[in-house]
């Protein structure tokens, strides 16, 4: 199991263009199709990753590894997702200036960026509606979306610190629910 976890996150690591929330749908797809974790546990892992300091994708690998196989699982998953970064960056650093201005590298990134944007939105959709649209549209979901809208305004318009917004949303949650 540890080896499988390591390999799974290693593969994710090599493909994790865009980092962070863009990687979440990929992790989710792999985990759920393998039956390693259910939707609720995955959503919980994404929540905790976003609350904690540090990179989101690495944080969720840690939590999911822990959830599946304890401390050793957390270490295996984290090592798996980080190792490709290390290898790729060392390779890029060796050929740094040649690669950066290559026309075809630029062309592939040109096609990749919209996909990454879509992936981030997909992870937002899965996160907001873990059991699918419309299915039991609860007042809680509506309240959560309201908090979300307020947080977006606070982050974009007033440039509040993410930690402040998270804390405020937590308090709003205690008051509302």
């Amino acid at each position: 199991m540890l080896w499988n976890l390591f390999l799974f996150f290693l593969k994710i690591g090599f493909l994790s263009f865009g980092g962070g929330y863009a990687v979440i749908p990929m992790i989710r797809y792999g985990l759920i199709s393998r039956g390693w974790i259910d939707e609720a546990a995955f959503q919980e892992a994404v929540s905790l990753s976003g609350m904690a300091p540090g990179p989101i994708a690495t944080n969720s690998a840690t939590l999911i590894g822990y959830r599946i196989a304890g401390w050793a699982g957390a270490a295996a998953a984290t090592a798996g997702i980080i190792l490709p970064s290390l290898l790729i960056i060392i390779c890029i650093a060796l050929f740094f200036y040649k690669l950066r201005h290559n026309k075809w590298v630029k062309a592939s990134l040109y096609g990749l960026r919209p996909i990454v944007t879509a992936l981030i939105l997909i992870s937002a959709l899965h996160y907001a509606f873990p059991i699918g649209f419309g299915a039991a549209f609860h007042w809680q979901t509506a309240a959560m979306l309201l908090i979300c809208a307020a947080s977006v305004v606070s982050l974009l318009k007033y440039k509040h610190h993410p930690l402040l917004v998270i804390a405020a949303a937590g308090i709003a949650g205690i008051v509302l629910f």
Partner: protein
Amino acid sequence: MKESRAALLLRLFWTFFKIGPSTFGGGYAMIPAIEREVAEKRKWLDAQEMSDMLSVAGSAPGGVGVNASAFIGYRLAGVAGAVAAVLGIALPTFLIVLGLGLVYRLMDGNPKVEAALLGIQGAILALILVSAYKMAKASLFDKTTTAIFIFSLTLMTITSFNPVFAIAAGLAAGIVCIGIKTLLGRRISTEKQRTSHTPGSSYYLEYYI
């Protein structure tokens, strides 16, 4: 000589060790802290190198924070430096996130905690949407990119299309589209034209790739 190398590795480790726990909101939130420590305080890289390095760190697979630390570590002290920097950035958040998970387990079922977490879900959703918005600003600037975006979003919403294939398709689509545009002799821009900066705004793009 040998000792100063060990000292450099230790300093790399410690510099990135301090950056991790102080940055909330994912990889891109780390950038200003990395810039402050690495370019301003320690003068390990100058501003131009820093900007080049960040666009590479953002385009390569992997989190931008981890990539940037690997890059800086490598530039300063080779492979050992890269390993020291990455360990430094990964270790504290690894422990913190596990601790947070444990605390959450202990308080599982507490109604106050459950309520707070429901509220926090709203904020996390907002953080995801904000990063999608920033990415969209940097990536959707012509008809082709908008079409790729809408098509892939629809496909992944209504079917359970494997995101790994979407990534591969995006790389291929970029090469094909630019190839066709080149053949047609169109003017090509593969990156959004930078508009002039408003004073006080960040020097760096908020999202790369």
